């Protein structure tokens, strides 16, 4: 071993170690930020390692440098700008977009190597070696394409650019996807047989498969899908590692792939969904239209913002249940103003965070943190559930399925078994909601029919603004 090889080996080893520590640190609140920086540092280190290795061995031509610089500047700049500009509420689709681009990168590398065999890969053609190469190229293209189109579809659906077309809920979609999958397999074997042009077939059908698999999945399950696609992009990276003979790529890709799978599993558990039903079950609302879920409301009480303010003023303990509607209305800051007033009046305020509140698990915590809500006031479901009977007022802000008592009481409900917040135990429940439309699941919420529940109709932000005004009139929070 000569010096550049040894140096690269050491740097790679260090990078893997730091990346592993980074992922580990990201799973704890205290260390998360440093861990993220550590991982970023490890990534830069790996680039330096690779470039110095080539400088010390084959050398890097001016022409290569130019293309390296062009690619990196454009990519980094766009990435940084998007990351700085994007509102916190659009995090899920942003992660999906980034993820798709990672998949695209793996796809392009494999495609490049397949069309223009580079030295040290396809040229020394011992049969076994070339077979491995073709397999890894195919896997890289297959997984990379699925990651790319799947992520883009996921992003478009979360942005509201794409809805769920009706035909995708029929059984026929499985047939279509099976056709795509079989076609990919045929293209794969054709490729191994030495027919290079079938690589294009592989690109096209695996892209279509990515679309076909993601399109039928409903908005509520999208976070799980993004997490799964994130795992795929790791697998694509590992496959690309086989293509260019890089251990570092294989380790890092495998790590992300495996960690992504675990995270997907954890998310599924929080939502009471199995991975299989997310992937093949179609959207939840489509299933439930025929079940008991879609009954009529019989006993809705609606009330004005003023009444709500009066009740809040008289309360000792208030629990806020923020949900998707709050995120969409970007009302987290307005909410914080309301709770500040209440706190100044000596009212105890706590936020009950359902594991899947917001648009993605943990998303609500990020949004509330952005609005300067003290971390100690955010209570997880299991912690806060016993508190509801001793609570005077619960404010449900744009949350729906996560406060549906059906999940506990009605075994025929599709929601049955999902962990929910027991808000109905509180003395008074105010549900701030735009209209009577159903939540993600499309299921009737029994909570709305209960005698201690009042609906305050309106956009979350507007209602909260009105509430601030009413509280001011009542002299709440004035010193």
């Amino acid at each position, binding site marked *: 071993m000569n010096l550049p090889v040894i140096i690269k080996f050491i740097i790679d080893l260090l990078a893997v170690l730091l990346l592993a520590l980074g992922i580990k640190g*990201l799973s704890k609140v205290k260390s998360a930020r440093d861990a993220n920086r550590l991982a970023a540092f490890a990534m830069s280190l790996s680039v330096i390692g690779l470039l110095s290795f080539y400088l010390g061995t084959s050398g890097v031509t001016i022409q*290569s440098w130019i293309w390296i610089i062009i690619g990196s500047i454009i990519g980094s700049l766009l990435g940084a700008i998007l990351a700085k500009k994007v509102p916190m509420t659009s995090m899920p689709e942003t992660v999906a977009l980034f993820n798709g681009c990672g998949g695209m990168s*793996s796809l392009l590398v494999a495609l490049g190597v397949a069309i223009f065999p580079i*030295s040290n890969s396809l040229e020394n053609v011992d049969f076994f070696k070339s077979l491995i190469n073709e397999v890894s190229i195919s896997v890289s293209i297959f997984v990379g394409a699925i990651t790319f189109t799947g992520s883009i579809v996921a992003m478009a659906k979360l942005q509201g650019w794409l809805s769920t077309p009706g035909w995708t809920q029929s059984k026929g979609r499985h047939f279509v996807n099976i056709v795509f999958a079989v076609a990919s397999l045929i293209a794969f074997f054709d490729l191994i047989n030495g027919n290079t042009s079938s690589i294009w077939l592989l690109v096209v059908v695996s892209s279509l498969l990515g679309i076909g698999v993601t399109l039928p999945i409903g908005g509520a399950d999208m976070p799980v899908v993004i997490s799964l696609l994130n795992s795929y992009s790791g697998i694509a990276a590992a496959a690309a590692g086989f293509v260019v003979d890089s251990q570092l790529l294989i380790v890092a890709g495998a790590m992300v792939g495996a960690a992504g799978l675990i995270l997907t599993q954890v998310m599924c558990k929080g939502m009471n969904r199995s991975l299989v039903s997310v992937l093949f079950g179609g959207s939840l609302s489509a299933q439930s239209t025929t079940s008991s879920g879609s009954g009529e409301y019989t006993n809705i009480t609606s009330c004005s913002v003023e009444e709500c303010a009066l009740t809040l003023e008289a309360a000792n303990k208030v629990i806020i249940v923020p949900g998707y509607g709050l995120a969409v209305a970007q009302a987290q800051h307005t909410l914080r103003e309301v709770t500040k007033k209440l706190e100044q009046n000596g009212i105890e305020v706590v936020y009950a965070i359902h594991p899947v509140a917001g648009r993605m698990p943990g998303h609500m915590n990020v949004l509330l943190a952005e609005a300067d809500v003290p971390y100690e006031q955010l209570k997880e479901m299991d912690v806060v559930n016993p508190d509801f009977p001793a609570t005077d007022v619960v404010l449900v802000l744009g949350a729906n399925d996560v406060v549906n008592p059906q999940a506990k009481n009605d075994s025929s409900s599709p929601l049955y078994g999902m962990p929910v917040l027991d808000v109905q135990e509180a003395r008074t429940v105010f549900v701030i909601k735009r209209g009577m439309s159903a939540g993600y699941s499309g299921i009737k919420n029994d909570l709305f029919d209960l005698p201690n529940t009042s609906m305050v109709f309106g956009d979350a932000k507007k209602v909260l603004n009105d509430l601030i005004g009413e509280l001011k009139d009542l002299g709440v929070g004035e010193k």
Partner: protein
Amino acid sequence: MSFISLLWVLLLGSLLGLELIGKVPPTLHTPLMSGANAISGITMLAALTLIVKADGNLPLLIIGSVSLGFALFNVVGGFFVTDRMLAMFSRKPSNKK
């Protein structure tokens, strides 16, 4: 690198990944996903290799460069966005009354 040892690397890497995150508080699901996502942009190394070994082949240089751009978009954007999210958690203690 022989294929077999690369397979070992794959196996051990996967096992490591499975062990790394056992219990994650729901708070961190989104940042963790986003951070891990940034790491999957490690394919930038493959794109770099492609460019360095392109040997003056223009189409290959372009493919490599585009691929590098996509990967860095993922890496840089991913880490920045994760940092932005996490900054909101870590700034809490200083603001507390």
